[in-house]
């Protein structure tokens, strides 16, 4: 299927995917009925046992979360061998829902998900207002930063929590931050710092910075420069890659010229759309590795991660979705699990109880990356390890050993409390 066809097929649709939850719940009720029978009719125990405390059959409480996603216009033509993912994010949310409902069948809490997926050009603001009017207050969003910024500032968003499952924008977490938004995936600054820590350990400190033409490329280049300063790196050259539409230019002729003129340890590339970064490796003037948006890539989640039980999540996701888990899927899974975890611990489905627990000291989310994850109170960012990966190999996980922090080593990545420019704390 071509990407264009996939987009056409993705006409906006709303859907309530609580069926999985219902199936689990009904089996939960059967199980609960059995609990009592078994507890009373068991064999003569060695010591006197009190019956299992399941006698009070409370009503099941229900919380419906919302998912609002909008596909971006494809910036570059994807290579034919790259599978088209038309349901990124939402599949992660659905898996999180199954996980929440498994705990919920023991705690008498049920979760559902109202899905709204928009095509490019659809009115996200209207869709958002509809969700709020329907009573949705936890809203997962997979939206462009400028759209998210606009929605968060609406009066309708006042008593709502937006869970940003896909952006990496530093401004959304800094000067443009909003008190009603939490960010599940690492910012560009966190990704750049993760790379820097590893490159500092390798003593690959002299960088050639290759920046693409898109505004996002400039943002990642800025994050790399901030990080270079923080970790004592030297940017010996910085060049902007331009797309000239000149047929005479080939990667073989262009890349060596582009990378000629200075000596450096490696090429740092900022090309988020993937329009030129992949052609740099093995074509540079000097034999140098490539890192950044291509080559060695900092990532929140990747199919090479197996440790810390991650293989379980990879397998469960693949079984459900028939493909690998993308970063946005991981972000959405984390968002749904965070709400589920808060609901379990507070024994409540009330908005304020869950919201304040998410930001409390007690909140610890198991995200299959070896350490507990939690939200930074100064900007709503989920603190987490960042993977450094190539297609078939997990190279390192940041924070890299040796980069200490007085409070939490995860805060050695990205904007720490004293550095934040966020003034609207969640």
């Amino acid at each position: 299927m071509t990407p264009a066809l996939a987009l056409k097929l993705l006409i906006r649709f709303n859907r309530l995917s609580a069926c999985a939850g219902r199936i689990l719940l009904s089996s939960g009720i059967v199980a609960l009925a059995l609990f009592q029978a078994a507890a009373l009719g068991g064999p003569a125990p060695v010591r006197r046992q009190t019956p299992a405390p399941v006698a009070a059959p409370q009503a099941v409480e229900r919380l419906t979360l919302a998912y609002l996603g909008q596909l971006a216009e494809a910036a570059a033509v994807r290579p034919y061998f790259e599978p088209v993912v038309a349901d990124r994010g939402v599949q992660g949310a659905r898996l999180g829902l199954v996980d929440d409902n498994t705990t919920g069948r023991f705690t008498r809490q049920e979760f559902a998900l109202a899905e709204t997926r928009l095509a490019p050009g659809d009115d996200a603001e209207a869709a958002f207002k509809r969700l709020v009017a329907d009573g949705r207050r936890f809203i997962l969003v997979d939206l462009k930063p400028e759209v998210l910024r606009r929605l968060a500032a609406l009066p309708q968003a006042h008593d709502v929590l937006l869970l940003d499952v896909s952006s990496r924008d530093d401004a959304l977490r800094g000067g443009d931050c909003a008190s009603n938004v939490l960010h599940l995936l690492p910012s560009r600054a966190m990704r750049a710092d993760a790379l820097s820590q590893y490159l500092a350990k390798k003593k690959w400190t002299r960088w050639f910075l290759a920046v693409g033409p898109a505004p996002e490329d400039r943002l990642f280049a800025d994050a790399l420069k901030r990080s270079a300063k923080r970790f004592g790196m030297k940017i010996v050259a910085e060049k902007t890659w331009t797309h000239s539409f000149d047929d005479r230019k080939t990667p073989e002729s262009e890349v060596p010229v582009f990378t000629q003129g200075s000596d450096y340890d490696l090429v740092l590339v900022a090309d988020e759309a993937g329009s030129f970064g992949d052609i740099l490796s093995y074509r540079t003037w000097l034999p140098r590795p490539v890192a950044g948006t291509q080559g060695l890539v900092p990532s929140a989640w990747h199919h090479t991660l197996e440790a810390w039980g991650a293989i379980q999540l990879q397998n469960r996701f693949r079984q459900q979705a028939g493909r690998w888990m993308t970063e946005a899927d991981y972000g959405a899974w984390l968002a749904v699990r965070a709400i589920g975890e808060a609901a379990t611990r507070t024994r409540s489905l009330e908005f304020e109880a869950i919201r304040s627990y998410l930001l409390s000291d007690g909140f610890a989310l198991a995200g299959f990356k070896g350490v507990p994850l939690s939200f930074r109170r100064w900007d709503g960012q989920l603190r987490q390890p960042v993977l450094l990966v190539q297609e078939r190999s997990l190279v390192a996980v940041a924070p890299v050993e040796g980069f200490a922090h007085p409070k939490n080593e995860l805060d050695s990545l990205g904007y720490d409390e004293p550095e934040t420019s966020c003034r609207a704390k969640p």
Partner: protein
Amino acid sequence: MPSHDRRLIGAALVLLCGVAAADTVYVTLEKDDAIAVIDGATGIRTRTARIGKRPRGIALAKDGKNLYVAASDSDAIQVIDAGTLNVTGTLPAGKDPETFAMDPDDRFLYVSNEDDGRVTVIDIAARKAVKEIPVGIEPEGIAVSPDGRWVVSTSETTNMAHWIDRAKLEVVDNTLVDPRPRAATFTADSRQLWVSSEIAGTVTVIDTETRQPLKTISFKIAGVTPEKVQPVGIRIDPARRYAYVALGPANRVAVVDAQKLEVKDYLLVGQRVWNLEFSPDFGRLYTTNGLSNDVSIIDLASHKVTKSVAVGSHPWGVAVRP
């Protein structure tokens, strides 16, 4: 008293009590697809034998003849002759078995199947799975109460201890514990269940009679950030005087006063310490250290680490034969 003298007295006590008995320590090597054998008294590795793929959980039959090893990537529990280390058979363990627990009467094995959220009950003699019990997502820790009444399974993503009535093989109660529960262990009198939570960095002590938590124990180590404290394996001595908790990447074993439920000490061992086992006389504790590829031996009279034994790649589980 100089520590030298204290050691002498300790040694004298050990001799008096006749507890310096030899024992054999078996350690599964997750990345070597092998099992290493250590002489417990001398701390010398005597043998290493290839077994199934990605061996993790390990237990010894009551008669000491057979070892059972969960070979996760072979999707089986292998039966291994403890003397020859030959694989003599396999038990149908379901997909990706990791940990399991033995029956008090050696009849059944209870296996956590992480991939499909089930506990599989295996009849050892018949070499047959007799029941599958649905539990939470990613069941991990599993324990059978010594009185034989309960089988408890902990699920890592559901964050619960599921109480399975052993006579009925049904879940009859659930206790919510801290995030990512790993190991579960009963006290010798079956009155308490201890559950470690890797992500929360805590151990929850649960009263068996009410299935309600009595206390949550946390660990604070000077110079170690809280995120590194990830409790996994637990061993409690039969008199419930001390409990020992492996703290994962904190590279320490916590010594807990098991009456007051307070931490007494932290013993520095190898890197990413995961599982623990007593020597048969309770004079020593063996730890598997997954990242430093060794086993630490702790003398329990003095609470001192006396030796570290290089064993091979990624030591995971440990069982001890008298």
